[in-house]
């Protein structure tokens, strides 16, 4: 019924993990734009109609300046990461066998789960059925995108609460019976520090001297070098409101293999660019603005309080997915020949 370009590949499960409002859905919504803004070797395409439409529809929504709704229930998407075909490979025995054949483009099928963030927490009102289903999903998946929301951490300081409960359960399920492993979870973990575009996050990075500018970037966006992402993460945990954000760092170290964790400083919406100047302006870069209808007069029912001011320039949105995709791809048994 559906064209299924991914069905040939096994599908790898990825789960989005993060507190409510940490930006999971927005990150997914901006994937398509990220893809178009930045040319890289990988593309993401929908493996079925609804998933393809999600990419398309949500990027339109974001371009209109609207943030996605709060997730009410687990949604899952099936996508395929398609890479650049490998350069033709010269093999022995082929010397006289005509021109070498170009290898087909590498493909990684992913099934992505976007749950409501509350399911990771332990605030009374979540249904046990839902949590169980989420846990089953986590057990099934090999990739996790963990979203650390510095703004929430500034204000509420509860990132640890939304990490630990589910992590312990997951470890119990996976590690309890497995006594030959290294005692670490088998997942690859992409830790995304979200909302880099926010004043407070940018300023923290700036104060710590973690900002650089890529000389090749025509827009001159500030960025945090991949090596420094972990440092920013530690730093944000330190300035957090609660005392136990540092436990987040510990918990991640404790449960995941070092070579399977990667930190990304991300922003789904990116910095504001004045359409005329088109370069980053440190005096005016906030891209999230209160909504038109305002909050004093009361919002229209269903309207969100914030909107996106200008164009969306996602930062490090593709990268976590691609990194996970590559992890999967490299672990596929016969990827050399496909």
């Amino acid at each position, binding site marked *: *019924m*559906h064209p299924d370009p991914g069905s040939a590949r096994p599908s790898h499960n990825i789960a989005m993990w993060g*507190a*409510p*409002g940490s930006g999971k*859905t927005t990150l997914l919504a901006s994937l398509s734009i990220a893809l178009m803004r930045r040319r890289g070797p990988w593309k993401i395409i929908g493996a*079925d*109609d*609804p*998933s393809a*439409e*999600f990419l398309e529809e949500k990027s339109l929504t974001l371009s209109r300046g609207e*943030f*996605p*709704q*709060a*997730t*009410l*229930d*687990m*949604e*899952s*998407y099936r996508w395929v990461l398609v890479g650049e075909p490998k350069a033709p490979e010269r093999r022995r025995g082929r010397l006289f066998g005509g021109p070498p054949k170009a290898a087909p483009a590498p493909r990684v099928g992913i099934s992505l789960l976007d749950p*409501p*963030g*509350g*399911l990771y*927490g332990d*605030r*009374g*009102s*979540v*249904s*046990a*059925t*839902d949590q169980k*289903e989420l846990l089953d999903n986590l057990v099934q998946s090999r990739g996790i995108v963990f979203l650390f929301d510095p703004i*929430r951490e500034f*204000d*509420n300081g509860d990132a640890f609460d939304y990490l630990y409960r589910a992590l312990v359960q997951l470890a119990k399920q996976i590690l309890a019976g497995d006594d030959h492993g290294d005692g670490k979870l088998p997942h690859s973990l992409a830790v995304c520090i979200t909302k880099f575009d926010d004043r407070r996050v940018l300023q923290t990075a700036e104060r710590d001297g973690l900002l650089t500018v890529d000389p090749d970037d025509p827009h001159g966006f500030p960025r945090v070098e991949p090596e420094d992402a972990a440092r920013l993460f530690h730093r944000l945990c330190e300035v957090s409101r609660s005392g136990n954000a540092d436990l987040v760092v510990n918990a991640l170290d404790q449960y995941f293999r070092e070579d399977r964790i990667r930190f990304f400083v991300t922003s789904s919406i990116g910095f504001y660019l004045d359409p005329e100047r088109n370069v980053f302006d440190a005096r005016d870069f906030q891209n999230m603005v209160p*909504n038109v209808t305002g909050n004093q007069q*009361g*919002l*229209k*029912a*269903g*309207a*969100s*309080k*914030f909107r996106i001011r200008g164009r969306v320039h996602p930062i490090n949105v593709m990268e976590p997915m691609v990194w996970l995709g590559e992890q999967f791809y490299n672990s596929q048994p016969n990827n050399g020949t496909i």
Partner: protein
Amino acid sequence: MGTAHLTVHWALEGKQPGSSDEYGILACSRGPFSPAHFMDIRARYSTGTPENLPQVTIGWVGGGRQDRWLLLSIRQSSAETDGTGRAIAETRYFCVPYEQVTEHHLSYEALHAALEACEPVRDEPLAVSVEAPNIEDIAARVGLEAISAAALLLTDEPVCVVGGEALPWLERLRFLDTVFSLLPYGMRTRLSASTWTSSTAGRWWTSKARNECRLSFTKHAPEGVHSVRWGALTEVSSSRHDAHRYQNLLVDRCGQPTALIEWLAAGTEPMSFSPDGRARALARLSEFTARDDAATRAISADQFTMERLLNECADFLKSRQDGKLAEHLDRLGNMVSRQGGRFFTGEQRRYQEVIAERQLLWTWQDVDDDLLFQLHAVILKVGYGPKLSARNMDEILDGVGSPGRSLLLAMLRMPSDAVVRLTLACRLDDKAELRRAFDQHSAGDLVNVAAREPYDGRLIQEIVDELARRGSAEEGLDIAGALREHNYLSDAIKALHPASIENRTRVLRRLLVAAYGQNLEPMEFAEIVGLPPGGEPLLAAAILSHGAGAGETLLQTVVLSYLGNAGLDPTTFMKVKSALLEPKLGGPAPSDDPEAYEDGSGNLNAPEGAVSRILRKLRNPMSRGRSVRVSSRHGHLEEAAGLRRQDGSGGKDWLPYVLLAILGVAVVLFFVLGYELLKSL
């Protein structure tokens, strides 16, 4: 119409404004449902993250006898936002006791309208009054999509409606109501539906309580979900038997939608989507047409079960699932036996259709012989039992192309009459079976069978042989009587040898030998050859006018020239002529081989007798097809007019007059008969 008074339990789901927490139950009424219950209900009926609000979801809760509830949830956007500024969607869940809605057949729209408006007070259950819906309004909305969707629900799999995004939510709710109104009301105890579901909300489409069905509008049909396109009739695949059947019945019956919906709405006893429930639903629907007719009223759900089993047998045949097939056949067999082999009027008609359509009586290649025989035997019992009639047999044989041995045998083993048995035994081409069949029947039976139209050449041949055999075994008397009954099988034999008078004559001769022995007694002869009544005065007048020697003339000119024109072989004709004209020599005919026409064995007693017999023969064409008579009506009238003229001229040659007169009588008779027939049309 009336008003229902309901006690409704409720819960409110949302977030505190400005909160950074997850959605949860903010308040609920005290009573049988705790917040934890409502969390589970929420999880079960979650339709994903909505794109458009409001959104109405319906479902059911509980299941015990005392514990049946309809669930209705209304999700609306509020003007409040959460900690990250996203609009908070507010959902109200209402649980309505099922038995309180049944009396007035409340629609979901009516429930929604009443519940929508009420403001819960602290933790009190709500007391709500709901107006009974106007069935005509619902009936007016019955359309192709609704019929398709209602039928597809009978697959017991989720159904989505695509292409309805642009419809206002209330229209969508009404649509759900319309669809449900096309199912027996009791199925609502197991129905879930929503005015919108995200295509990526896996759980709505996959997770499923037992025997529950889910219907929703969505954007794209998720994999493995039936879809109905808005504005179109979606044919239910015939492989989904119950659903397919339901659709056909609905299409058939939706001519009076109001009455139909009322009828279905009255079926309030709880029903699920299990095969059993489906059969009951089908029964309920078909009872609709039959509901005024007490005799056919009792359409049982078994009927639909049986039908489904038949269909599934065909599926298993196709997919070569022999084990399952055998199992199903057993079940079918048992069902028939349980019914004592009795069927309701018209019941088997439907099975026969399925059987024909699904080619259940065909000879399926690669199916084990025993299984094939079992298949045919059981199917025959279901479709044509307990006694296989000749008509059914013809139908079956016509339907299957070349019937296989297994089928023929299975048919042969069924209780049936001689015609069937003999026909089948003959078709079977099995000497032993044929023998056995012949042995069960008297000569009369055999002749009857041979005379049965349409004529079966092979069977006639066999029967003639058998009669010839029996004749020699002194069964002649019976044979003669039976032959007389059937006009000596002249027509049958004509069908056997349409081109050759000669052969027909030979076969008839064999029959006469079998019936009367080698030589005919004059009485026997007279019996065989007789004149029809009604022409006597004319004949007498003609003979008188001829004067003496009329017998001679009659023989010479009428009989001989009659036979001469028949196209007999010259030798045969010569034999006939000599037998006709030569005086009787007495003694038996020199050969008892009827094939060898010996000379001078005829014994014509009286010229009248001969003529009358010949004339009697002449009647036969008159009993042929109606069209012949109609088309020749004027021609005969003209001939009759010509007869009067010639009659008035006082011609000398009487024989043609006699013949003409006889013909005239025939024509008049014929005319009268034809006229009567015409009038009766």
